């Protein structure tokens, strides 16, 4: 009897254990199914990411595009090198020399549908009076929120819109048709007379209508520093801000033609170390820009008129600078080009004269660009003209010059 009871107990226990095992098996299978589902989801997401990456692999050079979730990041690198011949030569230099044009590191990222950041950093060489040097420059750094095509708000350091060239090419030498920039677009530290860099807040947008597209820009920035070479990217010498406002128009139905009109107002602060600059200068710059890009012909032309109201000398100075450039693509590789470039200055402007930028110059540039690869080009260019120069006795005279350049530029 006891044996039967024991047997029964064992059978019940075994049944209970089996029931427990069954429940555990069910739970394990359920857990297994859930895990399998999660793995499937992860693999699906992985495949999705692969598809997205696969969908974005075409482009120039390395095309370093990264997409993670709703963040797009794009890296690009520009560089150039070459050789120059100039007669007369630069002070303390020979007539012919090789040069390293520098490296431009570009990065932009978009987060979601509306937010974008952009950075452009340049390592470039500078030619000094006795020695040369390499330096690091943060050329652009901004963040922008694009509400729609009608309005984008941008905050940070940007190339100012007063020059079309400046806005098209920035420091990307490979993008430029020519080796040299025209006088209007020369940088502050490289003989320029117009501010190229602006730190501030910008509103811009485009309004489409039946006859074409109207674009507008409004830029509130720190403005210029006491000297023409200053870029006020970290601080401002005065509380008056510079304002740039402009309109561009692109007619519908043509090859890309763009016509722009821009005005920039600024209060240039006094220069405490210069007795000729004890008061501020009111500066107004007006620029007219034309940009046409046909399948073969590309024309770029802009003129800027500068009026300086010097409150120290109580005089007005009027300057203008401009160029007309045309290129004709024989095919995808060869593009000969021509440019006439001029800078006409009123002598004696205390803002420009300390660094001899109140002197006139004109130049004719002709050359050819050969895009031997999709992302690399060779340019050969001759420039000749006449420029005023000021000697030690402050006497101004005209002198002709010629230069020949060879440049290898690339993008990756």
């Amino acid at each position, binding site marked *: 009897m006891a044996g039967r009871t024991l047997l029964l107990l064992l059978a019940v226990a075994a049944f209970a254990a089996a029931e427990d095992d069954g429940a555990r098996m069910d739970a394990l299978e359920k857990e297994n199914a859930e895990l399998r589902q999660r793995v499937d989801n992860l693999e699906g997401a992985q495949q999705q990411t692969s598809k997205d990456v696969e969908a974005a692999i*075409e482009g*120039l050079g390395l095309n370093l595009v990264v997409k993670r979730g709703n963040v*797009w990041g794009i890296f*690009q690198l520009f560089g150039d090198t070459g050789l120059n011949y100039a007669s007369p030569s630069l002070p303390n230099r020979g007539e012919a020399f090789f040069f390293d044009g520098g490296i431009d590191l570009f990065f*932009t990222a978009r987060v979601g549908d509306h937010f974008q950041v952009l950075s452009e950093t340049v390592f470039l060489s500078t030619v000094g009076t006795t020695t040369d040097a390499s330096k690091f420059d943060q050329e652009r750094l901004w963040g922008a929120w694009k509400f729609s095509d009608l309005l984008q708000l941008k905050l940070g350091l940007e190339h100012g819109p007063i020059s079309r060239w400046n806005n*098209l090419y920035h420091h*990307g030498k490979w*993008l430029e048709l020519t080796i040299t920039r025209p006088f209007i677009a020369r940088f502050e530290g490289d003989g320029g007379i117009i501010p190229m860099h602006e730190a501030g807040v910008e509103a811009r947008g485009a309004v489409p209508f039946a006859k074409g597209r109207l674009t507008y820009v409004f830029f509130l920035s720190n403005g210029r520093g006491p000297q023409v070479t200053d870029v006020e990217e970290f601080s401002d010498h005065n509380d008056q801000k510079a304002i740039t406002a402009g309109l561009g128009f692109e007619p519908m139905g043509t090859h890309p033609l763009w016509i722009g009109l821009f005005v920039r107002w600024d209060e240039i602060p006094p220069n405490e170390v210069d007795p000729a600059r004890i008061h501020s200068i009111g500066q107004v710059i007006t620029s007219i820009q034309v940009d046409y890009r046909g*399948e073969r012909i590309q024309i770029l032309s802009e003129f800027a008129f500068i009026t300086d109201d010097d409150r120290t000398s109580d005089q007005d100075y009027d300057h203008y600078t401009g160029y007309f450039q045309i290129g004709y693509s024989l095919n*995808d590789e060869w593009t000969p080009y021509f440019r006439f470039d001029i800078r006409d200055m009123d002598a004696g402007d205390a803002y420009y004269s300390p660094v001899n930028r109140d002197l006139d110059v004109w130049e004719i540039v002709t050359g050819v660009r050969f895009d031997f690869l999709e992302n690399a080009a060779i340019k050969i260019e001759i420039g000749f003209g006449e420029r005023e120069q000021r000697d030690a006795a402050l006497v101004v005279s005209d002198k002709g010059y010629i230069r020949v350049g060879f440049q290898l530029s690339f993008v990756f």
Partner: protein
Amino acid sequence: MAYRALLLLCCTALAAARPEEAPKKEPLELAVIVHPKNPVTKVTLAELRAYLKVEREYWPDKKRCDVYLPQSNTDEYDVLLQKVYRMSHKKLQKYWVRRLFSGEISAKPSYVPSAKAAGEQVARGEGAISVVAAKDVPKGVSVLMIDGKKPGEAGYPLVGTPGEAEQEP
């Protein structure tokens, strides 16, 4: 005699050197596809150009217009260059670099390997737009009317012969 033989030799050499003409391709019609929820159902060719060149980045409902192009070695891409971009592939590549570098656009268009992949991208993103051969329009997408015409109708503007570049000054 020697002169004649030389002439014959030259003619033979010229005939041999003459490149074989590639077989002419049939005209190809393109269809522009968008997400079915996209409120836009018709555009002009100029508007289409603005979207595909990313001059317009947003649809009227404020959704971002994400462009998916056919890969550059396809007939669809070739006709797209002729009819919409009106520039060579190299120039278009440079165009994207310049506009991206200027900060005018925040990303370049993506490229899709097939009409099926284009359909998947468009079905997934409400703001997506892509271009496929009209005969390969995938399911689950809407086809835009261009200048008031659908693919297949007379006067539909996106018809071209692959390999025939339209040279304009």
